[in-house]
């Protein structure tokens, strides 16, 4: 039962409404691509999306709690509200594909299958963390899971992700680089330098713009002359589509399309994920720049997890009790990660001088 509300992107309550999904313009010979109609998930897909999104939600809530207790320091940017984006995209990937993003990275790491213990222990700055405690919330990497970070400088990951795609092309493999960045990052100059090279050299990179409507306290309409991010590649002949990033099925469908596009040698493609962050930009953001109603409306009408939950219950693919049990399992994983992250010792002081050069 795909209602109209699910097909169109979520609408902001105050700002002017967004254009619904539509074929990208063919201006200047950019290939036309349409937002694919999401396919219904099978039971197993719904359940796994539910589990994966819930893990991110609960993990982030716990991280917020540990931050409040002073166990996590510095900057901590939570992903709550945006879970469908990374979970849906991950469903479209295969072994060998790479992922890179900015500092709002906990969700991406969990989605790539990184161990919650290692992620949480990095947040608390302990030796069992993915970067041995030296990187923190914004800087984590996993060679094993092809996760290339974890970058603190807005926009810097975009050329880096383009370089991962260059390596794929160079080696002649069919791997794809998923390069995530925000609506705010989309205004950085190096993004457009990357677009040009990626298109010129037909690099297999999917640019996933996570448009959560705000860059810190600045709404998209206050920072961007062109607020349709799917059009940002037009002058480089890179096609783009807008996707309802709160619907994991829509994300998966767009991800399949984009990854196929890259694998078949057509070059880069842009996915504008229309999503929303429920929490402040970081822990110290009072979020006075948007109304409570706006946040509440997204939570109650578009929550990515609730959408899946409702379908599972409606189709009788799971009972309330099944989902409660699922929730309990997820909470246990998170509690275990948090326990580990508190019990694990800080790095040995000798680590101060390691890993600077090889």
């Amino acid at each position, binding site marked *: 039962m795909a209602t109209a509300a699910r097909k169109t992107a979520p609408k902001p309550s105050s700002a002017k409404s967004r254009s619904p999904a539509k074929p990208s313009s063919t201006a200047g010979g950019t290939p036309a691509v349409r937002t694919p109609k999401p396919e219904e998930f099978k039971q197993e897909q719904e359940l796994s999306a539910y589990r994966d999104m819930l893990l991110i939600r609960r993990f982030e*809530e716990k991280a*917020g*709690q540990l*931050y*409040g*207790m*002073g*166990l996590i*320091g*510095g*900057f901590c940017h939570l992903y709550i509200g945006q879970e469908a984006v990374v979970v849906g995209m991950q469903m479209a990937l295969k072994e060998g594909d790479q992922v890179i993003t900015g500092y709002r990275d906990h969700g991406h790491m969990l989605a790539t299958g990184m161990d919650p213990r290692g992620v949480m222990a*990095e947040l*608390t*700055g*302990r030796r069992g963390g993915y*970067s041995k*405690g*030296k*990187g*923190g*919330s*914004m*800087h984590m990497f996993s060679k094993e899971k092809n996760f290339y970070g974890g*970058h*603190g*400088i*807005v*926009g810097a990951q975009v050329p880096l992700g383009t370089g991962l795609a260059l390596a794929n092309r160079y080696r002649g493999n069919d791997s794809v680089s998923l390069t995530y960045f925000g609506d*705010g*990052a989309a*205004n*950085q*100059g*190096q993004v457009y330098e990357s677009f040009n090279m990626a298109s010129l050299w037909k690099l297999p990179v999917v640019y996933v713009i996570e448009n959560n409507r705000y*860059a*810190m*306290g*600045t709404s998209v309409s*206050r*920072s*961007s002359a062109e607020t349709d991010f799917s059009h940002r590649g037009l002058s480089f002949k890179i096609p783009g589509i807008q996707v309802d990033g709160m619907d994991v099925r829509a994300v998966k469908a767009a991800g399949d399309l984009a990854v196929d596009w890259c694998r078949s040698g057509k070059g880069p493609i842009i996915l504008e994920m229309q999503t929303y962050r*429920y929490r402040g930009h970081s*822990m*110290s953001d*009072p979020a006075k*720049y948007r109304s409570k109603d706006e946040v509440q409306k997204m*939570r109650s009408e578009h929550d990515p997890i609730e959408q899946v939950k409702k379908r599972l219950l409606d189709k009788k693919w799971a009972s309330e009790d099944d989902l409660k049990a699922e929730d309990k399992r997820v909470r246990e994983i998170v509690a275990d990660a948090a326990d580990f992250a*508190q019990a694990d*010792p*800080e*790095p040995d*002081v000798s*680590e*101060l*001088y390691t890993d*600077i050069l090889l």
Partner: protein
Amino acid sequence: MPTEILMPALSPTMEEGNLAKWLKKEGDAVAPGDVIAEIETDKATMEVEAIDEGKIGRILIGEGTEGVKVNTPIALLLADGESEEDLSKAPVSAPPAAAQAPAEEPAAQKVEETPKPAAVPKAEAPALPADPDIPEGTEMVPTTVREALRDAMAEEMRRDEDVFVMGEEVAEYQGAYKVTQGLLQEFGDKRVVDTPITEHGFAGVGIGAAFAGLKPIVEFMTFNFAMQAMDQLVNSAAKTLYMAGGQMGAPIVFRGPNGAAARVAAQHSQDYAAWYGHIPGLKVVMPYTAADAKGLLKAAIRDPNPVIFLENEILYGQTFDVPQLDDFVLPIGKARIHKAGKDATIVSFGIGMTYAVKAEEELRGMGLDVEIIDLRTIRPMDLDTVIESVKKTNRLVTVEEGFPQSSVGDHIAAQVMQRAFDYLDAPVITVAGKDVPMPYAANLEKLALPSVAEVVEAVKAVTYRG
């Protein structure tokens, strides 16, 4: 057993806050995500959200309480099935045991607390030895560095229509670190301009506007992000006057927090004093006190040259006396003798001064009379004042948070060696940050930064004490 709701930390540097308002009362049911209270810090008012489901059993910290330490229990939450009687079972937890948190120290506590030796004579003249141009009897007003910077900008904007501010979040958000608070309200959105996140672009735009005669104040959210704009700062701002044979230059100020904050890791924790200090065509200011911040920022805005103005997030909230004068402007390029002494000289600047000041207190307890020079300006550097001091004390230690190689201290040491070699009774010691990217882990971060103990050791070494 009821769950304790603790006073949360909302920023890397928050240690305590005020409990401004309770939005739930005892007996109210709460669900995860419900806003239960509002708390205030010096930067912002924030909402506290419930994490667990339950009923507010008891409010432990009343509305309006100020200075509530992070991690103090503020209320007790009853879970499903628990009743009022269970409240008595609540663990009466000791407040925020820093001892429990293996992080050891609140994040902001970067500078080591050294126990004060018993009989330390009080230094004459509290924080600020009067600058020569402050008239006797001028009222001194306790002011935070944050307010002093804001006041300097506001005063200069009132005085000169060509002065305007631009940067990320400077207007509607009132500044990421609240330094531009109130400016939008007073001066409007023509003169207080929010930019997209495009440092290289807006730095260049500012320089272009300065070529055309405006006097932009460009705020970098932090100087870490100014690396994206480095080409414009060095190639356009610094060199144009020279390349144009003096016809045209850039009267512009680039300002914002510089250096390590607390636990923000390698990409957000760099001190750029030495970087900009390297570039002819720039002036580089790095104040410590609020009075210097104000007087030097006003001077920077009036200066016809590009000025890099390096602030520090940890200093923003610190209070110093600022003279109440209609137009308090200090000279760029002049060091300030923070405390006179005869046995050894410590030269520092910006946050480095916090180590110097604490070390001096400790050394005084050991009977050493140390002179502290606050450089205030990195370029042009007031080496004359440093050399005069060395001629008197014959011993020199420099202190900064930046990387050790090609540091500001290295430059001072080289100059002193060339110009006052015969006056030195010991090799100059340069105390700096360690030669490593800033680690995130609390214990490693502490080691990566200089410490009061290192400064004390260095002074003992140059004076051949123990």
